[in-house]
């Protein structure tokens, strides 16, 4: 991992020195363990702020929307797919970007670590697939595979789909996993159980919209939830309003979501709202053989019409 950091710094420095980019967007160490934050570097002498480890789960495509500068952006597999989506949706031009590809081996789920250790976490270090967590009371070691974010553990696109620079050799993609097992489990429930399942899933939601803000797809100048003329959805914590919000938020991501997990990561109460977007991803894959952000020259599923599109839901 430390070689990743060194290579990112070297590439960023070269790009800035050669004036190929005005800025590089990457990560810097957060003020708390496991909370790395996005960082914009504009001068070659500042590149030492950039780091890389398994706490860089935030999706950096979110910081590219409508930018006019030339930008070097650090991108793991999911970020690169969202960058492709951004390019397809005219939110940034390919010529503006130098994509610094990072082959990703998954991000650590800070909630899993927090739940597994007692007391305040002082330091989290990783080496050779092991994560060591130091607290005031001592230290504990976990296998990284066991503390991955759920979306990373079922990820099948770890390597960047577009890149101009690469930080390391591509990693082997995971095979033989079913990314949609959790969605299938819900589909197997009865209607009654499903209604109840989502009631319980969404009950803690405080409508802070962190999921929306963290999402690179959510760039509308005025979000439907903030609109008051007309008011599409109630703004309170009425369970039906909460459900309507999550339903519509997910639907706005249909055929665009890359399951980067930024929404779930940002949620202060830990709701797995990814189940909703994943259902749409699953449908897109099954109905239109579409996965978002894999090719820069293909139009998204909901943007094209084919004579053989499934239409058995129409009477």
């Amino acid at each position, binding site marked *: 991992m430390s070689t990743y950091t060194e290579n990112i710094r070297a590439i960023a420095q070269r790009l800035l020195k050669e004036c190929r980019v005005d800025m590089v967007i990457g990560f810097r160490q957060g003020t708390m363990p496991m909370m790395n934050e996005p960082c914009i570097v504009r001068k070659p002498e500042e590149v030492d702020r950039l780091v890389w480890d398994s706490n860089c789960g935030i999706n950096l495509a979110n910081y590219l929307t409508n930018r006019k500068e030339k930008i070097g952006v650090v991108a793991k597999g999911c970020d690169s797919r969202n960058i492709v989506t951004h390019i397809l949706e005219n939110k940034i031009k390919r010529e503006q970007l130098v994509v610094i590809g990072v082959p990703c081996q998954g991000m650590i789920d800070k909630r899993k670590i927090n739940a597994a250790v007692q007391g305040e976490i002082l330091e989290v270090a990783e080496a050779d697939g092991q994560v060591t967590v130091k607290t005031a009371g001592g230290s504990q070691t976990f296998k990284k595979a066991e503390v991955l974010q759920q979306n990373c553990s079922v990820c099948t696109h770890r390597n960047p789909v577009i890149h101009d620079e690469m930080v390391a050799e591509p990693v082997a993609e995971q095979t033989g996993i079913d990314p949609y097992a959790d969605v299938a489990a819900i589909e197997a429930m009865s209607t009654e159980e499903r209604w109840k399942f989502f009631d319980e899933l969404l009950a803690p939601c405080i409508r802070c919209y962190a999921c929306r803000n963290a999402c690179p797809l959510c760039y509308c100048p005025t979000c439907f939830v903030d609109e008051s003329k007309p008011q599409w959805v109630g703004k309170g914590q009425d369970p039906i309003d909460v459900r309507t919000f999550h*339903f519509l938020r997910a639907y706005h991501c249909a055929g665009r979501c890359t399951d980067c997990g930024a929404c779930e990561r940002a949620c202060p109460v830990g709701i797995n709202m990814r189940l909703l977007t994943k259902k749409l991803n699953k*449908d897109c894959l099954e109905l239109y053989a579409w996965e978002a952000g894999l090719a820069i020259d293909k139009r998204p599923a909901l943007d094209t019409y084919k004579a053989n599109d499934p239409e058995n839901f129409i009477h």
Partner: protein
Amino acid sequence: MKNLLELMGVEPDRIHFSWISSAESTKFVKVVKEITAKVKALGPNQRFVKQAAKVA
């Protein structure tokens, strides 16, 4: 949309889609009859209905 609503627990027979030309009056009548029958069988909708706030 129908799929996601159903995943969230709305009954499959509650939502219907159809494509009817203004010239297809018989199809329109047929579809409306089918839909009313199916929805009546389910009874009044309780889901995605916002109850009025309870005032003490």
